[in-house]
């Protein structure tokens, strides 16, 4: 590895840090304010202007003889695109084009001309030289010893050498940044000033040492060059040393052009926030769960139906797990009672009648993490048993289309609504499209969180002796009910009518809903991950194929805050389900809007379609028979 030319923040210091093996080079940074200005710099002219200035400066009282380090100079032209954090830069090391330098022979290792003892002497000389003399000096061999000659000891300050230079024993040494057989850029400048000052050196054989010092002060990779320098015509015209300058650096592609540093990953606060929050999930993978798929969360699109207490909690937990694509559907506005429980809203959202919840929730997510892809859809979800009047028919149909498209466009549908019947339409549409559905519902101090199976009803897969149900055959929210949804204002079980709840319930249920989803996504079978009947046994007893990366995934979680109890029942699909059964989905596929409107107008219609009505009658008959049996005894 050759020498490294380093420019960093400390390069702007007036006094460079004292580091023994570093050579300090002064330079000029020219930063342009626009890309156009940067591009329009005439590169060759620019370098010649800079070169002439350098030449004029060192010629003044021949300052370079006492201070050889003044011969080294570099330039940077740059442009900073501060919006994208792209930094364009181009280094130039101005070197005179004339005299032309010829290498008389292939370069040799320093060991070919100096003995180990002499090399050690040279290394010591180099180490002890003043910083300003280190870059360019000369040495002679005298009686097998190396003697240092600073430039001021061999050159007359006015013109020419002090004494005749014996080129056979004089070696001109320069600090060589090259790591190939050819010498580095400072040699051009060295020979230019030497031959300009002592014209007798022109076209003479000059011995040169390219001193290559490594980090420990070792100079054994130094090279010996035998060179001549001659002034030649440029464009068929004689020229002076300061007329033409070269030295633009090639970029990474090997062509003459600027380099670009794309620094957004370490400077753009938006990207910093995104990667820092990602780091939390990666740490889980690196430290605890090496098989976790980090990318699946990023690519999974979630649709949250309901942006209330549950919706807010679910959205925040999704963000925490690395989900980036979250859409809300809600038709409410943020009211003054909301912000304390609904964690995405604040007081400002309540003013002037309140913002649309779906939109406010999406904005809030982007405030938390700007890289979140979030939007709000304000739409009312039509419900069975809530008849649609003629005036609302058009709007209802348009809402249904909006909701249908949203479900089709997402991978996961969260049902976080406050009534039982509002869950019917999205359950049906999601079942039709085969989407993952996670359902959460709250009571005063109880909650229900469950996942829906999306396969066909298959009684063969579930027998009495089985200890588990395949994911596809798991029941939906409505499978375990034997009534169609109607008006929920009537007294129902607590988890079926959410209005007043203990504040912690939504946080718990929301968190569990997200954890169930992540469990599914991390399971090799995803939505088809089986659910075991008895989760309460030690998870070590559950066969590994039932567990995903994060453990077994329950079908349903019912929690009771009153007694701090949780149960995890597992239930199969019901073939007469009013939401996900084949007969309902078929009817929906055939009649679509007409079928839906009929359901909205009368909940009982679903009971007729599915045959539940007859089941009810049969159930009543069984009751009678049973009673009569008892009577006989």
């Amino acid at each position, binding site marked *: *590895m050759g020498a*490294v030319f*380093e420019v*960093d923040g400390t390069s702007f210091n007036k006094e460079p840090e004292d580091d*023994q*093996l570093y050579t300090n080079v002064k330079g000029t940074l020219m930063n342009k304010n626009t890309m156009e200005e940067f591009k329009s710099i005439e590169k060759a002219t620019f370098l010649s202007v800079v070169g002439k200035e350098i030449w004029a400066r060192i010629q003044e009282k021949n300052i370079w003889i006492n201070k050889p380090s003044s011969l080294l100079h570099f330039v940077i032209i740059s442009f900073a695109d501060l919006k994208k954090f792209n*930094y364009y*830069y181009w280094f130039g090391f101005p070197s005179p084009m004339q005299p032309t330098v010829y290498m008389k022979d292939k370069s040799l290792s320093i060991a070919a001309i100096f003995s180990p003892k002499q090399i050690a002497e040279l290394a010591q000389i180099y180490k002890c030289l003043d910083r300003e003399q280190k870059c360019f000096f000369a040495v002679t061999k005298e009686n097998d010893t190396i003697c240092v000659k600073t430039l001021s000891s061999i050159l007359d300050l006015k013109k020419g050498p002090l004494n005749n230079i014996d080129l056979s024993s004089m070696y001109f040494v320069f600090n060589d940044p090259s790591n190939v057989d050819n010498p580095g850029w400072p040699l051009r400048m060295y020979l230019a000033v030497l031959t300009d000052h002592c014209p007798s050196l022109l076209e003479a054989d000059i011995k040169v040492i390219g001193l290559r010092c490594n*980090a*420990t*002060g070792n100079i054994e990779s130094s090279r010996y060059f035998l060179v001549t320098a001659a002034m030649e015509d440029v464009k068929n015209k004689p020229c002076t040393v300061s007329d033409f300058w070269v030295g633009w650096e090639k970029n990474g592609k090997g062509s003459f052009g600027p*380099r*670009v*540093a*794309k*620094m957004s*990953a*370490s400077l753009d606060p938006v990207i910093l926030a995104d990667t*820092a929050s990602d*780091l939390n999930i*990666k*740490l889980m*993978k*690196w*430290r605890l769960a*090496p098989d976790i798929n980090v990318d699946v969360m990023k690519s999974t699109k979630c649709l949250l139906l309901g942006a209330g207490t549950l919706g807010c909690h679910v959205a925040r937990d999704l963000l925490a797990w690395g989900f980036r694509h979250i859409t809300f559907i809600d038709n409410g506005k943020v009211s003054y009672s909301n912000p304390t429980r609904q964690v995405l809203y604040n007081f400002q959202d309540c003013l002037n009648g309140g913002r649309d919840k779906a939109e406010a929730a999406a904005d809030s997510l982007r405030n938390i993490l700007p890289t979140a892809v979030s939007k709000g859809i304000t739409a009312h979800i039509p419900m069975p048993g809530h008849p649609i009047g003629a005036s609302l028919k058009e709007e209802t149909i348009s809402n249904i289309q909006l909701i249908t498209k949203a479900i089709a466009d997402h991978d996961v549908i969260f049902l976080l609504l406050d009534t039982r019947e509002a869950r019917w339409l999205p359950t049906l549409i999601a079942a039709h499209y085969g989407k993952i559905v996670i359902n959460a519902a709250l009571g005063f101090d109880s909650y229900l969180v469950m996942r829906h199976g999306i396969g066909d009803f298959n009684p063969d897969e579930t027998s009495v002796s089985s200890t588990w149900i395949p994911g596809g055959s798991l029941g939906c929210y409505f499978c375990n009910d034997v009534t169609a949804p109607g008006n929920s204002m009537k007294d129902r079980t607590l988890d079926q009518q959410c209005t007043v709840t203990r504040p912690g319930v939504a946080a718990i249920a929301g968190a569990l809903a997200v954890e169930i989803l992540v469990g599914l996504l991390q399971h090799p079978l995803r939505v088809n991950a089986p659910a075991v009947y008895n989760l309460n046994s030690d998870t070590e007893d559950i066969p590994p194929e039932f567990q995903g990366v994060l453990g077994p995934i329950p079908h349903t979680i019912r929690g009771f805050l009153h007694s701090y109890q949780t149960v995890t029942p597992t239930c199969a699909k019901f073939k007469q389900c009013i939401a996900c059964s084949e007969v309902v989905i078929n009817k929906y596929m055939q009649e679509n809007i007409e079928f839906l409107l009929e359901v909205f107008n009368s909940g009982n219609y679903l009971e007729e379609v599915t045959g539940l009505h007859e089941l009810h009658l049969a159930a009543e008959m069984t009751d009678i028979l049973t009673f009569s049996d008892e009577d006989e005894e």
Partner: protein
Amino acid sequence: MMSATTITIEEFLEAAKEFVKKSEKVCDGWALKLDKTDIFKTYIKKDTFIECPDTTALYKIEYVIFYNLSYGVPSFSFNVWNSSGMLITLDDIRRMSFLQINQKDFYSVITQQEHPIFQRPYFIVHPCHTETLLAAFRSSSKNIIVTFLGLITPLIKLKLPLEFGYQ
């Protein structure tokens, strides 16, 4: 009696000073950055360059050894930049051959974390096994940092001159 296996900040500082002195002798480039107001923020660091053998691309590496207060051991951290000053990602580091870590164990050995001293992301060698390993060499160790680096260098190609082992 239970013997202490962790080391104190004072022991760390002592070893760090001695280590840097040895480094100066052999020009290994380690420097002590003493923080007098908060001694736990004292660390030693070395800047160096490496060339990727496959692409000949040049990288700048900063090694930092600091005192890990929670584990009571020295901790090793580093960052790598390309020649334009862009920070290299963990996945890129994993593919770079200057680390000799089994690809499978890589993430359990090295992770990117917010650095406890600089509050910026750094690659940190996880300190969880350091204490047990150091304990085995503790009584025979002349300098705990040399011993510590001796344990790290099989993982990270860190050319440690043999002179560090001399008295």
